């Protein structure tokens, strides 16, 4: 019993130390980059967790002043207003946001909590209904808690607790995600995974948490787990192009190039203007000896970014392989205009001149 208690105390002390370290670091960064809305939002989040609501509010407002469309800062500020029972301010922000994003389930959910707590049950039910309509996560959650039954919202006696639970989950999940990313950046993947796992556990419908977990697992070399997390992220957000790209790189690391190819094609379809993705797809085509398609992707990459040197080198080599000497020479000469000291390319050019 005692050892359990002291372990808990040690854990708390360790956590507080980490918290202070992060806080100090962000405070230092803010002094260097006072106009970074991200930093203002992050420090606000940290202060809010510690109950320093006045200071937190100042930072969220500053974040929104710097970037009025900053979604997370808006959520955090309205959350703060709900928590400090400043209903009018919270409602004003949320109604404005909901006008901009009428299909955002979480905004309706926040308004639902607000209306419920101010005794406007009918309006609360309406907002919760909308949240359920726009996101299956809310439908599943409220069905499990019997707030949503046979197509009707039931704001029964225990509903307040249910609403507050989901309300807090979102906030805590954001916090754990932030700590996880910080730890990952500091080269502590094991601790980062624990925090990101907590975030994903609290809000399993948030694709970003799974994507972040996937990235850290990949960094750690735990490739099957990385694949699993990226797949979860993509199931939630099928138009997450970089998710497909990251998944493709992981497949590349374990030489599952057929899957890598399939994922990179999807990534390019979703993000056709990303030259780097087109370059990687070209490598996959070229490895399969599908030179026409590889050349097509490289030309596209060069159209997007004319100074993409590697794409030009690959294109020159592709032409050379196909004995299209004139085109190969043209590409090599263009490269040498940028990097005249490139011996590899000079040798290649001399060989075919």
């Amino acid at each position, binding site marked *: 019993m005692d050892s359990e208690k002291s372990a808990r105390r040690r854990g708390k002390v360790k956590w507080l130390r980490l918290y202070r370290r992060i806080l100090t670091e962000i405070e230092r960064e803010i002094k260097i980059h006072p106009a970074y809305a991200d930093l203002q939002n992050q420090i606000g989040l940290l202060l809010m967790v510690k109950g320093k609501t006045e200071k937190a509010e100042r930072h969220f407002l500053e974040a929104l002043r710097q970037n009025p469309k900053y979604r997370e800062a808006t959520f955090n500020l309205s959350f703060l207003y709900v928590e400090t029972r400043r209903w009018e301010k919270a409602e004003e922000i949320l109604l404005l946001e909901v006008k901009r994003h009428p299909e955002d389930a979480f905004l309706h959910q926040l308004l639902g909590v607000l209306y419920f707590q101010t005794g406007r049950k009918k309006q609360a039910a309406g907002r919760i209904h909308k949240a359920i309509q726009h996101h299956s996560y809310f439908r599943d959650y409220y069905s499990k808690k019997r707030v949503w039954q046979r197509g009707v919202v039931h704001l029964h006696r225990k509903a307040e607790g249910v609403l507050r639970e989901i309300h807090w989950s979102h906030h805590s999940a954001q916090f754990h995600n932030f700590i996880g990313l910080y730890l990952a950046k500091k080269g502590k993947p094991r601790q980062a995974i624990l925090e990101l796992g907590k975030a994903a556990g609290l809000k399993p419908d948030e694709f970003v948490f799974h994507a972040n977990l996937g990235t850290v697992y*990949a*960094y750690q070399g735990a490739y099957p787990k990385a694949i699993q997390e990226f797949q979860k992220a993509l199931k939630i957000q099928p138009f997450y192009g970089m998710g497909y790209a990251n998944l493709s*790189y*992981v497949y*590349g*690391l374990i*030489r599952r*190039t057929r899957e*890598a190819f399939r994922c990179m094609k999807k990534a390019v379809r979703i993000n056709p203007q990303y030259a780097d993705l087109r*370059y*990687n797809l070209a*490598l*996959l085509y*070229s*490895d399969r000896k599908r030179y026409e398609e590889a050349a097509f992707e490289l030309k596209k990459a060069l159209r997007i970014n004319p100074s993409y*040197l*590697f*794409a030009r*080198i*690959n294109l020159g*080599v592709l032409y050379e392989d196909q004995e299209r000497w004139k085109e190969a020479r043209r590409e090599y000469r263009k490269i040498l205009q940028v*990097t005249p*000291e*490139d011996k*590899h390319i000079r040798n290649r050019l001399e060989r075919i001149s």
Partner: protein
Amino acid sequence: MLKEDFVIQSNVRQILIRSNIDYSRITFGTVKGVVYLRGVFKSAHLHTDGSGEGAANITIKSLESLEKKIKGIPGVIDIEFELTNWTKAGGQWILKKAQEDGGR
């Protein structure tokens, strides 16, 4: 030997991410087993360009380690470094600015 450029490219990306290098200033490509690295080479934990003696030693070690790791990727036949601040001459890594000064 397998020479899948995409596999090599994925491995180079992974090595850069895992290293203590500020890889945001480096671009890379793979052409038929030859890896190209371009840009500014800087250790992530150093707040200088690496020109101080201690800093230079750390950077040289990072460069050697990076080179060794990339050469260890199956299918890699060569590495072409085109760094703006470091160059390799006679098997030694030299800070470009120092090299230019010495030549004057």
